[in-house]
Every structure is written in structure tokens, then in C-alpha cells.
């Protein structure tokens, strides 16, 4: 039954999550509850100040979702994580992908992983970087695909391409709350009739030298991490493992930085809040308890999402 719920609820029909503690929601939720830690010593960070551990994701294996294997080289880490998480959430649901909405929370452009280093070194003159040298020997050393890998909307692009999604869409910045911004946009699309189904989530990786340097400079003490997390939402009743809605104001919980367990999986940047929301949805589905996820980020108004067990359908 495709009908807008008057109280704002939509069904959670699918989920996907990968982080340092695993690549499925049940495993991650169990390990989080058990207090397990997914951080490990990272060779990339060992010679840097600050934590030398990180919450890395193994792999991931993109093959189930890649249309063309060669496209992997176009994909920076957030795009890879997004593709797996969103692909898992979509699963095998028979959804019209021409109208499926897609909203992705994104972080800063992924800093290049030293790909431009050779070009910049070739352009180093006695006074610093020399534009003439950049135009000359530096140019041929500059990776032509780097601009495409580092645009912030590339995660959205790759998910739409490889999963064949054509509907309403957006790539939303919002710090740790970016994923919840994406979810709120999806909820608006569903409630206002622009879509009957929506994929919403976030993916990010802070496990690189550039991000780590910047994080330390801004006072972050936690280890870096990475994650992809997504939900498949629908206004079609009876589809859900759980249901969720934007918590109506006033929000009685105090606003706070995402309670995502950075000490267990690292700082997952734009995906931090979304990891918490997906785990909360799983918890609501398995324990029958309603959860409230509140996420804010400096400069972003707090967002609160209520997650509840699925609505019992009338007999």
C-alpha cells in the first residue's frame, strides 16, 4: 500500500553497513555491543604525529555491483564504500530504479593520496612551487583522472551508475551529520510524492595522510576511520524491517556530536552519524525498542531521527 503515513513514518526495507568491525549490520551491531575494537596499527600513519591506528575496512569486494571492472580505478575510497553499502541496502528489492531517489552524505573532497605528488615535486623551484615548471614537466606527471576521483559527488555518481538509479538525488555536505541530511531529504521526497522508494546514506574515509593532518590540526584526538552506511526507505507499507521518521520538535535530547563509536571504529567523517542510524534501525528491528539518533556538526543544526520496530499491519 503506497500511502503517506500521517505521522511521518516510512519503512526501512533494507540496510547496508561496512566499517572496521565488519561488512554486515548484524555483525557490526553485535561487536559494538560487545565492546570490540576494530582499530589496528596502520603503516600509513605510523610516521605521523597522533594515533597510528585506524579503523580500516577490509577490501571491499566491489564485483557484485560494478558494471565495468575498469571503473574501479575511477573510484576513490568513499565511492567504493558507498557502492557496497548502497548496493547491500538495495539488495534484490524489485524497485523501479527510474524513479528511485538517491541521497548521499559526502565529506570534503577526498584528498589525493599522493597521486599529484610527482607533478608537484617536478614543479618545485627554488622559491617553492613554480607555475612554469607545473606547466612543463609537471603537467605530464599530473594524473588525468584525479579531478574525477576527488569531486565530492563522485560517490553519488558511482552509486547511480552502477546500480542504475535515475530519480531525485543529491550529494549533501554536513560533516558528521551528512548522512542524516541525506535521510531527511529522502524522507521529504517520499512524503511529498516525488518518490515511493529512496536510498539514503553516507560514505567517507579519513584514513589518509592529508585527512589525518587536517584532523589533528583541528584538534581531533580520535583515530581515523572509514565506513559506508545506507538505508532503503519506502512509503509503501508493509515492507519494513523497521520504520523511521524525523523526530518532531522539540528535540528533548541535548544536541551533541554524533555518538558514533569512534573509539571502536575510528572517526568515519561524513558517515559517522549514518553508521549510528543504521545500527539503530537494526536494533529497533531485533529488540523492538524505539531509538532516537541525534547528530549535529559545527555549523549544522541538530538532526534527530526516530527509529522504531515495524508497524504491525492490520489483519
Amino acid at each position, binding site marked *: 500500500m503506497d500511502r503517506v503515513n500521517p505521522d511521518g513514518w516510512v519503512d526501512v526495507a533494507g540496510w547496508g553497513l561496512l566499517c572496521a568491525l565488519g561488512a554486515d549490520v548484524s555483525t557490526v551491531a553485535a561487536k559494538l555491543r560487545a565492546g570490540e575494537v576494530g582499530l589496528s596499527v596502520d603503516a600509513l600513519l605510523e610516521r605521523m604525529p597522533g594515533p597510528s591506528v585506524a579503523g580500516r575496512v577490509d577490501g571491499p569486494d566491489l564485483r557484485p555491483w560494478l558494471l565495468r571492472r575498469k571503473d574501479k580505478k575511477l573510484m576513490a575510497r568513499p565511492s567504493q564504500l558507498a557502492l557496497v553499502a548502497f548496493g547491500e541496502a538495495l539488495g534484490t528489492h524489485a524497485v523501479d530504479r527510474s524513479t528511485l531517489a538517491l541521497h548521499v552524505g559526502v565529506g570534503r573532497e577526498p584528498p589525493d593520496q599522493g597521486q599529484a605528488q610527482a607533478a608537484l615535486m617536478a614543479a618545485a623551484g627554488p622559491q617553492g612551487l613554480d607555475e612554469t615548471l607545473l606547466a612543463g614537466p609537471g603537467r605530464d606527471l599530473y594524473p588525468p583522472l584525479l579531478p574525477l576521483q576527488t569531486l565530492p559527488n563522485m560517490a553519488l555518481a558511482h552509486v547511480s*551508475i552502477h546500480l542504475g538509479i535515475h530519480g531525485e538525488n543529491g550529494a549533501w555536505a554536513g560533516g558528521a551529520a551528512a548522512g542524516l541530511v541525506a535521510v531527511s531529504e529522502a524522507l521529504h521526497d517520499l512524503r511529498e510524492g516525488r518518490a515511493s522508494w529512496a536510498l539514503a546514506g553516507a560514505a567517507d574515509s579519513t584514513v589518509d595522510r592529508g585527512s589525518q593532518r587536517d584532523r589533528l590540526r583541528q584538534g581531533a584526538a580520535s583515530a581515523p576511520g572509514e565506513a559506508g552506511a545506507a538505508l532503503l526507505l519506502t512509503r509503501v507499507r508493509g515492507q519494513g524491517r523497521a520504520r523511521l521518521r524525523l523526530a518532531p520538535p522539540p528535540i528533548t535530547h541535548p544536541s551533541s556530536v554524533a555518538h558514533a563509536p569512534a573509539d571502536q571504529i575510528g572517526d568515519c567523517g561524513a558517515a559517522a552519524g549514518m553508521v549510528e542510524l543504521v545500527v539503530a534501525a537494526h536494533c529497533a528491528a531485533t529488540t523492538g525498542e524505539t531509538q532516537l539518533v541525534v547528530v549535529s556538526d559545527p555549523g549544522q543544526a541538530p538532526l534527530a531521527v526516530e527509529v522504531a520496530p515495524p508497524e504491525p499491519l492490520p489483519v
Partner: protein
Amino acid sequence: MKPRIVITGMGAVTPSGANVQETWTALCSGRSAVRRITRFDATGFPVSIGAEAQDPGSAEAWLASRGQTHLLTQVHDLKGRLALAALREALDQSGLEPVPRRPERIAVCMGSEAARPDLAVIATRMRAGALPAPEELAALAPDAPTRLFAAVLGAQGPRSTTSTACTSSSQAIGEALLALRRGDADVAVAGGVDVLIDPIMVTGFSRLGALSTRNATPDAASRPFDRNRDGFVLGEGAGVLVLETEAHARARGADILAELSGFGCSCNAWRITDSPPDGRGARQAMEAALTDARLAPSAVGYINAHGTYTSMNDSSETAGIHRALGSAADQAWVSSTKSMMGHLVAACGAVEAIVCTQAVRSQAVPPGINLDEPDPACALRHVGSAAREVSLNHALTNAFGFGGSNGSLVLSRWTG
């Protein structure tokens, strides 16, 4: 019944002018703003041309007049200065301030990508082994313009930042439209800003083969829909709109410039850089915008095309226009103002929405220059090399981004 959303203020700083009127006058004159790059020594680069915006200078005096000089810590570069200049013009025109208002009812929706420190800053740091200041890092984030605007306005309402490359500010304006209709706000400031003319970006995009290499004839380099187009010209600028519900605008006696009557978006799901040859993503966005505006295709009198003069985009957009409008495509005038001011990327949606607003207000459509030999695959009713006076009630503007996000906006003449 959806509330009508109106435009009460506009601000723009573009390669064609330091404000909306200068930009509009230059566009209608068919004047190209593409020149040899002056921002850095582009000698030896494969592309040495661009469409540079005039630096509006420090916003210190303006912020000081508002008692907000502390916000200068959030303005580190040309991008911040362009954004503030456009905001200032839009606010001045709207007459929104100083009017008693509820800050929680003011939304800010911006389209923006991450900023980059300039090469001189990188060079200095490489020499000294220095690290960026935390406030500099914060200013590089994609949502920096959104945070800055919210702080200037004292806005505490909905806030969003879209980063979908060339579609960013088009989607930001669409987001504002939806938020106002939903009742989440009474006023929204929406737009976009981008600055791309730096050695790294020129190197990167030229390595992709995306940029025109007509360095010897810069004013002929931007050639939307022309058979001999060879890539786009990087530009820079900012565009900002003040949007309100009709009720709010009338209640405070605001001058209404035009109506923002529709928004639609879609994904191509095709390739990272190319658009599908059949224009299906463009068609879907335009159809959605017209449906949202409750307009038949025949109501569209002018289309400000995305028209980036890459080989694929122009023919794909043409196919999309024909599929979306059907026989009405033969009646709608089409031009790409990127032919004169280059590609403003994240800011192009906002600036071109402003162009369309000026078009419905002025009852004139701007030209698309350098269309010397129209590509047969781009058969549209081209405005041509000179502006035209027309009877125009509704204009459509398209933005199609790297990665395949598409956005279309409908701007309508305000008749009350």
C-alpha cells in the same frame, strides 16, 4: 495548494559583471568575458584562457557596518569574497533588512564544492613545513559558504549544502523552493559560488581534454552548439537569490521580481563525464520541473541551456529538450550564456537562474555567441548572436553535472 514562491532579491558577481545589471547588460550586448588568464602566469599551460570574475575586494567595510567583523575569519579567499558580494547585492535589493524577523524561519541553501588553497599558499607551506590554521581548514569545507551566510544573516532555519558539481546551485535553489513550500521557512537565501581558475584545476581539466584550447582567440573559444566546439572555458563567480513565500513577501511590501515556479532533477546513471546520447536524464529533469510548475511544454518561451560546448553535452541536451518539449521545442528560444561568461560550475545554476529572471522581467532573451556553424545534431531554435525582445512568461534553465546529476528550474513572469 502549494504556496507560490517568489524572488525578491538577486546578487551576482560574474566574469561579465560585478553585479546583476552589469552582467545582464554585457550578456545582452553579446560581449565575451573570456580572456587570457591573469590570475597566474599561464604561459606554457595547454590552456591559458579563462573567464575571470573581478575581485570584489574585502568585505570588511560591509561586515563592519553590520558589527560582524569577527566573520572575516571565515573569509580567506576569492571564493568567500565573491559569495559575500553577491549576498550583499541580493539583500540590498530584497529590502529584507533591517526588518523584524524570526531567525528560525530563514533558510540557507547553497551549492558549493570544497575550496583549495592557492598555489602560493601551498608553496609557502612546503618551504616552511607549516600547517594550515584550523580556521583555514574550516573555510575549505564545502559547507563553508552556507555557514558564512547563516552567520551573516543570523539564520537559524534549515540549512543545506549540495555538492553535485555543475548542478550544485540549481539543486540548492530547488531545495530552497521545497523547504519554503513545505513551510519549514518563510525566507530562503539560495545560490552558489565557485572559483576554478588556478594552476591545479587548469592542469587537471586540460589533462581530461575537457577545455577549449583556442588560446589565440579567447573570445571565440566558448562555442555552445557549434560544430567546431572543442571544450569549455573555466569561469568563476557567485549567484544568490532571496526567495520568499508570496504571503511573506506581500506582508512586508516587498517588490516581487519573478516567481520560482518549478524544479526537477534526475540522475543519468550513464558515465562520469559524458551524458547519454539520447538525453534521457535531461528529459527527465525538464519534465519533472514542468510538472512541478504545472506547465505544459508549450508554455516555455526560453531555455537557458547548460550548453557547455563539450562534444557530448550539447547534442545530449538537444535530444533531451526535444524529448521533453516535443513539438514545442520548435517554439522555445534557446541560448547558452556560457558562450560569453564561461562555465561557473557550482555557481552556474544560480547565475543562470538570475539570467532567466532578468529575461522574464525584461521580456528579452540573451544571445548565444560563436554559433557560426550550428551542429546539425543541435537543431534548436537558437537565439543567435544578438539578444531578442520576446513575449516571455516562463523560462527554463538547465544544469547538468559531472557525475550525471541534472537539475532544471522554471522561472516565471510575475503578474500578481
